[in-house]
C-alpha cells in the first residue's frame, strides 16, 4: 500500500517540476482550464453550472443580479440559477464553505414585528380585548357582542372606572363608528 501511495506522489512531483522547467507558457495553458468565464482569472469560490461552465461565485452572482428575469449561462445560454450550480471544493482549502453562503451574503428572511397601536395593550392575552377582533369578523353581529357583551363564556368586563374599562369603551366606540360609516358607504354605493 505504501509503495502504491508513493508512486503517484513522486510522479506528480516529477510532472510538477517538469512544468516549472517548461516555462511560463505551459503553466498558463494549465491554469487557463480553470479560469472563470466571466473575469477570465483563475476561479475563486468556484461554482460549476449544470452545463459544465466554471465561474467565480461572485462573478456569476453579479451576472444573475444584472438580469434577474433572464437567467442564462453566460457561455452557452442554457438555463442557470442559484440553485442550479454546484460549488467546487479543492484540497488546498482548509475549511471548505459553500461560496453561495458567504459572498454575497444570502438575503435573510424577514419577519417584522406586528405593529402595536397605542391604547390596545391587552390584545393577545385572552382578556376582553379579544372580543374586538371577533366583532370585526362576525360583522355586523359582532358589534352587538362587543358593544353589549352578550357572550357568557368569556371573562366579564373589567370593573367600571379602571383604565382597561375606559380603553375598551373607547375602542368599541371607534369600531361602532367604523361600522356606521361602512353601512352608510354600503347604502350610498
Amino acid at each position, binding site marked *: 500500500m505504501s509503495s502504491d501511495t508513493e508512486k503517484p506522489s513522486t510522479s506528480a512531483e516529477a510532472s510538477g517540476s517538469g512544468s516549472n522547467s517548461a516555462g511560463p507558457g505551459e503553466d498558463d495553458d494549465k491554469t487557463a482550464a480553470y479560469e472563470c*468565464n*466571466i*473575469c*477570465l482569472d483563475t476561479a475563486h469560490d468556484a461554482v460549476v453550472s449544470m452545463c459544465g461552465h466554471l465561474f467565480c461565485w461572485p*462573478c456569476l452572482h453579479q451576472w444573475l443580479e444584472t438580469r434577474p428575469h*433572464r437567467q442564462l449561462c*453566460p*457561455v452557452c445560454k442554457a438555463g442557470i440559477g442559484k440553485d442550479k450550480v454546484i460549488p467546487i471544493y479543492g484540497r488546498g482549502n482548509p475549511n471548505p464553505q459553500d461560496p453561495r453562503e458567504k459572498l454575497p451574503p444570502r438575503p435573510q428572511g424577514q419577519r417584522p414585528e406586528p405593529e402595536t397601536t397605542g391604547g390596545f395593550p391587552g390584545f393577545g392575552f385572552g382578556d376582553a380585548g379579544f372580543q374586538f377582533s371577533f366583532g370585526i369578523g362576525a360583522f355586523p353581529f359582532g358589534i352587538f357582542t362587543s358593544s353589549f357583551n352578550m357572550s357568557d363564556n368569556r371573562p366579564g368586563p373589567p370593573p367600571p372606572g379602571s383604565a382597561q374599562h375606559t380603553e375598551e369603551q373607547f375602542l368599541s366606540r371607534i369600531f361602532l363608528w367604523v361600522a356606521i360609516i361602512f353601512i352608510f358607504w354600503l347604502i350610498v354605493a
Partner: protein
Amino acid sequence: MTNIAQARIKREFKEVVKSDEVAACNITLELVDDKYNELIGKIAGPPDTPYAEGTFCLEIRIPETYPFNPPIVKFLTKIWHPNISSVTGAICLDILKDQWAAAMTLRTVLLSLQALLAAAEPDDPQDAVVAQQYKENYSIFEKTAKHWTAVYAGGPKSCPELDSKITSLKNMGFDENQARAALSSKGWDIERATEYLIN
C-alpha cells in the same frame, strides 16, 4: 472604471493580440489610451461580399459594468449596410444589446461584426433606406456597398460610372459626401438626388 472591467480588458487585449485572427490580419485591436476604457477595433471585410478587401474601424467604449453589460460599439468607417447606420455608424446587432452574455469578449464581438457584414439582416434594419434597397434592388445595393468600401474603407475601385455621377453633383456645388449619400439612397438617379439635396 471598476477593477473587474479593467482587468478583463487587459486580458482580452492580450488574447486578441495573440490570436490567430490577428495573424491572418482579420481583426486588430488598439488602445486609445492606457485607461482601457476606449479601444479602436479594425475588421477586414469578408471575402465574396461587397466589403471584401476593405478595412473597417470601430469605436469600442467599455462601460463600468463590463462584462455584465456589453461594450458600446459603432463604426467609424462609413459603410453601406442594412444593419449599420450610413450616417452615424450605429450598429443593430442583438449581442450588443439584449443577447449579450458575460462570457463574450471583444474578440467574439469583432468576429460577430465581421459575420454581420457577410450576412445582413434586412428584416431587422438599422438603416431603413439601405434595408429597402437591399430587399428591392440587390444589384444596386451591391454596387453602392462596393463603392462605399472603395471610398471609405480602402477597397478596390469598382465602378467609374458612379464616380462620374458624384463628380457631376460636386460640380453643381454640393459636398462630395452629401452627394454620395443622396445618390446612394436615391438609387444613383441624379435628378432625384439633386431634388433631395435641394430640399
